[in-house]
């Protein structure tokens, strides 16, 4: 039968021979295209920087709880701190897209042990607390002391939710992550301004309002976008904080 006379009927057991051969070729071509596109697209996505969520690896931590402006655990550095602050400050958050304020309110200023999972990136460390694991601990309490004022700055960067950005989701910033960042900050995850210095290294500033309280939902409309913030930078231990007025965020 000449090729143009071949006629395909799907419910017959055999396709006409030439049509069958051609269809096999087209199918093979499609499969090869799928393979090439899989490789191309996988390679096309940007390489992501290191950010770690030690999922499944719970540890125990001991330190002093500080609830304001955002919950943190102050842990004394072992040995001689050699000019570094005498304690490390770990952000504390709860499961999912929730801050740990409620869970920790009653423990403010107290020495505790708690179980949790580490999240870390660029020297910033966070603990996702295992719900209900906080216990009173023996031992000295650490206090942050007065913040060190570093003067007024105008800073250009991106407001991110610290939990995802530090490693729970990678990527944890830019447009595709915007909705998630808003949901996280809305749920109490500390918002952080991520600023790149001239070398491209990231600097993180916890965002607080002019009276030093959490800014929470007041920044939701500006997450993930390039923004300029003007405010007073302070250092609390090893953590930078930006005191600013959330009504004055400027989109770029």
């Amino acid at each position, binding site marked *: 039968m000449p090729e143009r006379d071949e006629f395909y009927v799907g*419910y017959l057991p055999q396709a006409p021979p030439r049509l069958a051969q051609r269809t096999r070729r087209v199918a093979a071509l499609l499969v090869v295209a799928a393979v090439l596109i899989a490789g191309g697209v996988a390679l096309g996505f940007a390489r992501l920087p290191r950010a770690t969520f030690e999922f499944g690896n719970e540890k125990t931590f001991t330190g002093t709880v500080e609830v304001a402006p955002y919950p943190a655990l102050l842990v004394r550095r072992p040995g001689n701190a050699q000019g570094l602050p005498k304690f490390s400050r770990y952000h504390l958050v709860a499961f999912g897209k929730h801050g740990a304020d409620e869970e920790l309110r009653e423990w403010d200023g107290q020495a505790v042990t708690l179980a949790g999972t580490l999240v870390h990136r660029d020297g910033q460390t966070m603990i996702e607390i295992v719900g209900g694991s906080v216990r009173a601990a023996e031992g000295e309490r650490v206090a942050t002391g007065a913040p060190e004022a570093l003067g007024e700055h105008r800073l250009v960067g991106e407001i991110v939710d610290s939990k995802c950005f530090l490693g729970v989701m990678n990527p944890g910033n830019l447009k595709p992550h915007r*909705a998630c960042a808003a949901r996280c900050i809305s749920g109490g995850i500390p918002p952080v301004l991520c600023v790149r210095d001239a070398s491209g290294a990231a600097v993180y500033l916890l965002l607080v309002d002019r009276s030093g309280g959490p800014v929470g939902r007041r920044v939701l409309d500006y997450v993930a976008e390039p923004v300029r913030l003007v405010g007073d930078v302070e250092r609390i231990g090893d953590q930078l904080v930006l005191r600013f007025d959330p009504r004055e965020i400027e989109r770029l």
Partner: protein
Amino acid sequence: MSVGYQAVGWNRQKKLYDRTLALGVGLYLALFLAISAAVNPNATAETLVIRAFGTGALLLLHVVLAIGPLCRLDRRFLPLLYNRRHLGVTMFGLALVHGLFSLVQFHAFGDTHPLVSLFTANSRYDSLAWFPFQPLGFVALVILFLMAATSHDFWLANLGAPVWKALHMLVYVAYSLVVAHVVLGSLQAETCPLLTGLVGAGLVAIVALHLVAGWRERALDAEHAGDATDGFVDVCAVDDIEPERAKIVTLGGERVAVFRYDDKVSAVGNACRHQNGPLGEGRIIDGCITCPWHGYQYRPEDGCSPPPFTEKVPTYDVRVTRGRVLVRSEAHAPGTPVAPAQVHAMGSRDA
């Protein structure tokens, strides 16, 4: 064909089709995940799953959308069309995994119901560049769901052809939404020109295929301008029609398939009752007009599917005079018997 709605038979062709589809999809996902994990070790596993299934679904959507015009341009693609339903349902499955993972990853375990968060977490409906792209994907997913859920012939029969067709034309809305979802979503963050290029090339290919196929068909729809005598229009010479095949002409605004078989000529409406397949591109098998798309059959003498099937297409009066075929431009009601025109006078066949 559609008498009882038993499960569609699983014949050898369908098994081959499905096995090839599974192989292609499996290879795509496995390779995407393996390569991504190797070159992007810092990416979260959920991110890779979201990307693998999202891009896989979009790729398959391109295949689904390309098959229609490809078949119109070259009949030899028809074997891909026969089982297109399985492509569509598979594509929906991939998109569903992508959508559910995204919904959980980006919206669950927070202070708002995930489906509310999906629409409200990003509030920038006032901006194009920052426009919430996830709701676009969600609406597309709902459309793909409706299509997958109604893809069986059971629904075609129960919803009625016009409703079913309209529903399935929404695939173009879904495709547009997905393109916007990707352009306003991932492509706002990704900088590799290959990704933008692939999305753009896909869009151009789909639009171009439809334009070319549509343009070719326009020629078909030009009203046939042969001489008319008492309502009969001269449509072609008998020899213009290959044996057991048809020529498609447009009469009174309708496409008509004029078949030549067994030294006879008959004309029926061109649109298959199943999914509007072009009967005139089919052929006569076992004495019946056989649709090129899924093989529904009709008798040329009366436009009826042979029992036990019940589909009917319109029929037309035909004459053959001095080697020319004349068809009356008014259709008979579907299923009306019409005597075929004899090509050679009885008894003079071999003359």
